[in-house]
């Protein structure tokens, strides 16, 4: 073959190379203005190019996007982000000990679920990705219930039907996590359309990763949201990696993901995803806009996948070991903590004791969760339940399969 002219997007660094985030366009904290809620999409296209940031390098909050949180609000945010992290750390260990089969962390991305969770109202409906465990926690799913799901035990909300982390919460208005990437995005838009049809002012929000933006459902959702001006927030969590491929493989190299909807007339905001205040504020802006009939907003949250893709993954095979340490937007937990310390609301000591407290909480939850069964010890779920909920009422053919299954189990 002659010389190929195919362009191959390449990450700036592979294992053994020096991390290089020079490709990331950054704006200083406070430099991006906050438009009026009724600004026309065409007049705010610049929001997709800049980077909305509130927390400055000196840990102060700057500019129009500062939500002006009081100490309590900041502590609430910090507490939930930390809980998310502590929970993830613990569940990861638990998986490594072979006590659950699979796990996925949100390490480094905790501001997404927590700040956005706080900016939404309880009646708003969330359509999460598999990295939004923080949303489930914040919206009232107990640690014990989450652990029981991962254990597929007798208290499992999924009754053993789903891989660990595939939570759902009807009462918390968080949709069932799907293993198929991006499928929840058009659901969020449809849900929001229904809200508009019913004349309600609840909005919907959904989350996908940078890699998932290449799926058809991403585009379906944008199209329907644009056509019907659905009250929805469509979030792209750009954590730079999709398993082993970097965001350039999802066409993130030339234009930010925040710009993906501009061609349909959907405003996009590029936000420092590790800046708790900026994430909160941008989300609230988009939510208020949607609630007033302003239609959809696409929010890109620029962050970094601090951990492995999942417990099945080994990222040292495809990216520099220390890449996270060089990530210019740092760690969301650390940044909020430093801000609170700078504001005089917090201290290293308080922080340590909060971590201890959360670890104790998680340990207690794990102890309790195991009572409902583990991978090796009972009590066990009744396998006969596997035939329930395929349909509203179980048809005769499934009933006879249930009988047959139990016969075979009994050795008949």
């Amino acid at each position, binding site marked *: 073959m002659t010389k190929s002219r195919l362009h191959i997007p390449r990450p700036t660094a592979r294992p053994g190379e020096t991390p290089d985030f020079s490709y990331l366009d950054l704006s200083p904290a406070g430099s991006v203005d906050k438009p009026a809620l009724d600004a026309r999409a065409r007049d705010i296209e610049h929001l997709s190019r800049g980077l909305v940031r509130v927390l400055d390098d000196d840990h102060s909050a700057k500019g129009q996007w500062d939500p002006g949180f009081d100490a309590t609000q900041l502590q609430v945010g910090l507490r939930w982000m930390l809980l998310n992290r502590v929970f993830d750390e613990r569940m990861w260990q638990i998986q490594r000990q072979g006590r659950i089969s699979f796990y996925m962390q949100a390490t480094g991305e905790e501001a997404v679920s927590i700040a956005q969770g706080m900016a939404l109202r309880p009646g708003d409906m969330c359509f999460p990705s598999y990295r939004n465990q923080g949303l489930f926690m914040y919206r009232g799913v107990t640690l014990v219930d989450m652990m029981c799901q991962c254990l597929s035990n007798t208290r499992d909300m999924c009754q053993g039907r789903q891989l660990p982390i595939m939570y*759902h919460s009807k009462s918390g208005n968080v949709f069932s996590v799907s293993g198929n990437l991006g499928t929840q995005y058009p659901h969020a838009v449809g849900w929001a359309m229904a809200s508009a*049809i019913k004349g309600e002012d609840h909005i919907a929000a959904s989350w996908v990763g940078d890699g998932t933006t290449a799926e058809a459902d991403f585009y379906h959702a944008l199209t329907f949201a644009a056509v019907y001006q659905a009250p929805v927030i469509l979030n792209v969590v750009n954590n730079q990696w999709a398993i082993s491929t970097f965001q350039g493989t999802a066409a993130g190299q030339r234009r930010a993901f925040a710009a993906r909807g501009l061609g349909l007339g959907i405003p996009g905001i590029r936000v420092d995803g590790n800046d708790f205040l900026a994430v909160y504020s941008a989300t609230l802006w988009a939510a208020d806009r949607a609630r007033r009939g302003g239609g959809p907003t696409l929010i890109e949250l620029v962050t970094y996948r601090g951990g492995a893709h999942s417990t099945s993954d080994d990222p040292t095979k495809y990216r520099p070991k220390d890449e996270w340490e060089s990530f210019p937007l740092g760690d969301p937990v650390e940044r909020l903590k430093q801000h609170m310390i700078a504001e005089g609301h917090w201290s290293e000591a308080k922080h340590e004791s909060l971590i201890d407290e959360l670890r104790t909480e998680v340990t207690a939850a794990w102890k309790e969760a195991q009572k409902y069964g583990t991978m090796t010890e009972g009590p066990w779920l009744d396998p006969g339940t596997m035939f329930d909920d395929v349909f509203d009422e179980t048809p005769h053919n499934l009933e006879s399969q249930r009988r047959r299954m139990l016969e075979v189990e009994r050795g008949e």
Partner: protein
Amino acid sequence: MARMNMIEAIRSAHDIVMDRDPSVIVLGEDVGYFGGVFRCTDGLQRKYGEHRVIDAPISEGGIIGAAIGMGVNGLRPVAEIQFADYIYPGFDQIVSELARLRYRSCGEFFSPVTIRTPCGGGIRGGQTHSQSPEGIFTHVTGIKTVMPSNPYDAKGLLISAIESNDPVVFFEPKRIYNGPFDGDPEKPAVSWNSHPKGEVPEGHYTVPLGKADVARPGEELTIVTYGTLVHIAIAAAAETGVDAEVIDVRTMAPLDVATLADSVNKTGRCLVAHEATRFGGYGAELAATVQKECFYSLEVPIGRVAGWDTPYPHAFEWQYFPGLKRMSAGIRRVMEAG
């Protein structure tokens, strides 16, 4: 009672349910202002408004994906896919989401979407307006699949489907929208006017999902089929003089095994017929089930008459489509065997 063709019956089903239940909404390509390319939703937008009868972008995946989300938010969406040949871009949403949502959330979330779509050949529509993809859906657990063969059933089954809390894929055999068809392309078109199943109540009634119908009672042979071919089977029984019992499956999944088994246990012979390609089609499930349930009654192998295993060939549709000729040949084969 009124006289309706299948299009009118389907329209009436929408009307009745929309009138009773404000959560029923309709979406699809060209379904709104225009009333659908087959006119099945004609007049509904004028009556129920643009917010309940919604013209959608040309995006089958988006239509089904959005419908699922609407269903989760308490609406009862009826989505039209303009031709069954165009349903595949929405296939992932059907299989991975619609069919599994209730299961994976243990009933906390579900979405009662009905997907209507015209299917089948015999209208000189060529490959992309003639397919019969039901066999791809009947293998997907968590959805019900339906195909009516006449206006009465169409309305009653569609009302059942829309009112059901389960997702339903509702196939409409477009060849018989305007009248039953006995499988001879040379004969003039007939209308539902003179057919007993063209008599349709104006109001609300249901035909239950999951129940087959004996479309023609008989003693010598059981023909198991659905949609357009029900009428062709009846015509072929007349043509061949074989006293065939014709079973109209109506709901393909879940299948009414008892009605099939009772018939074959009585007749001892069975012919399965559908328009879709034969290999790996729904007819295979029918044959596999019948051989299992009726093994000791069967006198001869179960026959299958189906579309040949080629894409739908435009100009050869009358050699390809299982019309009267092929149905009669199939009957004779089964009768002469053994």
